């Protein structure tokens, strides 16, 4: 199972004008890793799939705003 985001630590100068973000993150959605989709992957139910935007659980990778309380999302 691949992680849906990766992090890195950019250089921080002692003279940076703003409070530095020590860890930056970027999205690495599941389509990057699948190659050709293999047969018989687990599916959502039809009503779940309409909500999720995909029939396939392996491709589900929701994104939440840091402004949406309690939803999480990428570390900013």
């Amino acid at each position, binding site marked *: 199972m691949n992680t849906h985001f990766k992090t890195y630590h950019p250089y921080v100068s002692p003279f940076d004008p703003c409070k530095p973000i020590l860890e930056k993150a970027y*999205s690495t*959605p*599941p*389509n990057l890793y*699948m*190659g*050709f*989709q293999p047969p018989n992957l687990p599916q959502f139910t039809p009503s779940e799939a*309409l*909500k*999720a*935007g*995909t029939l*396939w659980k392996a*491709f*589900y*990778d*929701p*994104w*939440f*705003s*840091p*402004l*949406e309380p309690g*939803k999480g*999302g*990428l570390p*900013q």
Partner: protein
Amino acid sequence: MWIYEKKLQYPVRVGTCNPRLAKYLIEQYGGADGELSAALRYLNQRYSIPDKVIGLLTDIGTEEFAHLEMIATMIYKLTKDATPEQIKAAGIEDHYVNHDKGLFYHNAAGTPWTAAFIQTKGDPIADLYEDIAAEEKARATYQWIINLSDDTDLNDGLRFLREREIVHSQRFREAVEILKDEQGKKKIF
């Protein structure tokens, strides 16, 4: 030939009166990586691509119009009742003086949509790689719009659209694999 179904692909709910969000959403309406660009790019590229993947471009290009309609609905709901004061506060007065509450194909910075946003190279691999890039760019654009929005109802619809970008990218990647055509052939060079 198309058949139109008079409903949205996914229900659009806007929970807060925040016309500023319309300023961000217009990027997905008339921007380079927006839904209009996507639909016109794919539906145009289909004529000069191998038969095996024409249907994919038709299907995805058609779905992009359904996404365009959702974005239009979001923008319309956010702006239709805004007073001139709210328009000014939201920073969309430049749009208002030219278009009133009407929608128009331009990006978040006001640059009108142009065919220079899209390309057909006639080379199937080049075209599909452009399509993959377009889907990833649209996915990222949705991330940044969601990050700027605290409207959970609106973000729900945007999350659906972002997920579709992931699936479309996957299908374009599979189309490249089909055209590479070496799979399972056990060719010895």
